[in-house]
């Protein structure tokens, strides 16, 4: 193992331990929110690396999370029923199921993505999100609109006197998020990240240098899907259910918001963005609850979305790079390319036919 990788692993362990220590300062509901934020973090980190480094905008990461959630719920329930005495085994096989299902879907999408440019991929992933409720109704294993229950994992006996179940789930969530995100950090730092930037910067140049852009894009999509799938497993663990309604278009767009606001390509930014998309709606809805009933009902759930939309436009227009660049964690882009006349509609870079 080379030195940078070891440093990343050490840092990941320290951050995860700090986050676990922080759960003692939070009440059960805050710990539940932390678990949800950790789930989003895993998905948003994958999305952010995908969009920031390879320029592939996926509007369908909620479906990849749902794939992970279903994979987790189905496998974990099956193992928990077969071997009632081994919750750890059920949980771990559940995670494996999540990774397999989400990874397989991600690889399929990645193979498509390798051939597509921006708007086509975004449209395809959007169609995927819209089709999720249909898929849940058509595929019997997904049990329709009401979805599947995921097994409940109680606090282990040794810890039962110390922590409550929400805190235990937050611990598991943090651990899984660490396992999901750390490989992304290593990938981004290393040769993989270099290849992704090369393929984004200049496909022909990358090809001349022996980098196959199609393979890089497909691989990036699959990696990102794995991370999102583990995030979906965590969400299924925390909410003990997985249903198509929870992974709709609104949630999928929130993941994009988190990645954009945090700063595309930045892992730390993804953490900030995920915390924001979990905490801000809750804050706004709490505020809306204090208003008169009719006004509160109208604002509930909508005001936060409106704010997020406005923030996304503002960030994209005024501060591309998001929080991460504002905090100095992402480098500013090198000198801007030759300025195109502002009066002209833009033509996207041409993808040579493969």
């Amino acid at each position, binding site marked *: 193992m080379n030195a940078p990788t070891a440093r990343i692993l050490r840092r990941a362990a320290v951050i995860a331990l700090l986050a676990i220590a922080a759960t003692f300062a939070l009440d059960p509901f805050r710990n539940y929110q932390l678990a949800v934020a950790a789930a989003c973090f895993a998905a948003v980190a994958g999305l952010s690396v995908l969009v920031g480094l390879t320029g592939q905008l996926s509007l369908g990461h909620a479906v990849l999370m749902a794939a992970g959630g279903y994979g987790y719920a189905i496998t974990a329930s099956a193992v928990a029923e077969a071997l009632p005495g081994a919750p750890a085994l059920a949980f771990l096989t559940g995670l494996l199921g999540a990774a397999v299902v989400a990874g397989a879907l991600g690889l399929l999408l990645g193979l498509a993505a390798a051939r597509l440019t921006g*708007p086509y991929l975004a449209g395809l992933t959007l169609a995927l999100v819209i089709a999720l409720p249909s898929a849940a109704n058509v595929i019997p294993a997904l049990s329709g609109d009401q979805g599947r229950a995921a097994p409940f994992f109680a606090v282990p006996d040794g810890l039962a006197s110390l922590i409550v179940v929400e805190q235990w789930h937050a611990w598991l969530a943090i651990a899984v998020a660490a396992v999901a995100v750390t490989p992304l950090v290593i990938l981004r730092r290393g040769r993989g990240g270099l290849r992704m930037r090369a393929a984004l910067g200049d496909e022909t140049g990358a090809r001349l240098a022996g980098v196959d852009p199609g393979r890089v894009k497909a691989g990036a999509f699959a990696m990102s899907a794995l991370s999102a799938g583990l995030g979906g497993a965590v969400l299924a663990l925390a909410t003990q259910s997985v249903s198509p309604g929870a992974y709709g278009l609104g949630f999928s767009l929130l993941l*994009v*918001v988190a990645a954009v606001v945090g700063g595309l390509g930045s892992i730390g930014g993804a953490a900030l963005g995920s915390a924001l998309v979990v905490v801000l709606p809750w804050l706004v809805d709490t505020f809306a609850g204090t208003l008169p009933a009719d006004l509160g009902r109208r604002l509930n759930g909508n005001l936060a979305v409106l704010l997020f939309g406005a923030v996304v436009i503002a960030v*994209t227009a005024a501060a591309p790079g998001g929080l991460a660049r504002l905090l100095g964690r992402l480098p500013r882009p090198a000198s801007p390319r030759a300025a195109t006349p502002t009066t002209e509609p833009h033509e996207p870079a041409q993808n040579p036919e493969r």
Partner: protein
Amino acid sequence: MDRLVFLLSSGLARGAVLALFALSLVIVWRSARVVNFAQAAMAITAVYAAFAITAASGSYWLGLLGALAAGALLGALVERGPLRFVRGDDPLSGMIIAIGLVMVLQAGLAMAFGPEHRPMRAPFPERPLMIGEIPVLSPYEVFVLIVAAAVMCALALLFGKTPLGLKLRAAAFAPETSRLLGVRVPRMVTIGWMLSVATAALAALLLVPTELGLNPHAADLLFVDAFAVAVVGGLDSPVGALAAGLIIGILDSLVTGYATAAAAPLAVLVLLTGVLLVRPRGLFAAADRRTG
């Protein structure tokens, strides 16, 4: 047999709406080289304007005119407003700004009008007419087909036969040369947006009475289907959008009728994936003629 005729004819009406919406995506793609992911939210905002006008005046036709005007205005505002911030070297930023717009518009509508489905009445009866024993189109579906055909002919005349249409096409295909020849390219792009969103608003207005009712998300599925239509037909090809719109409308109707309504979005997804895998830029996409 009766059922097949009925499904084919109602699929034709749905296909006309789809083709109209897909055409709006084609117009904006041709004039500005963007896929407007906010098209559904912008169209449904214009339909809410029509809804308010119809509720206030009691006239469907005033509402229809209002939807067209609101769509055109919204198109101009969005093109002159948020989209001016799109950085020229980055196709992502336009899509992300459009996503922000979707969230702002849909949440704003839900706050202003409430999230419930509001029933919207069609100007003509929706019960199918019988030819012999076979139910075929309803008067409203006939109206939809006539309006869609009229708008498409009008757009074809506008783009093909008028000086404005020539300038619009010139600005889209060779912006630099057009500017040298005195065409106001930015104005042409704005007009393209106005035409596009007004067309989309009309398509959404025609769709809503046949669905559950007016809701901020009422056009989301229409957008996805129309995107599939535009991709199958080629984002550059109005004729392709028309043909693919009718094909997908009928496919949708057949799947809904013979399998289940739930399977229709899946069928569209499968078709979209298949087409994109074979032809990453759509079935009828012409070679890229645009320079500069």
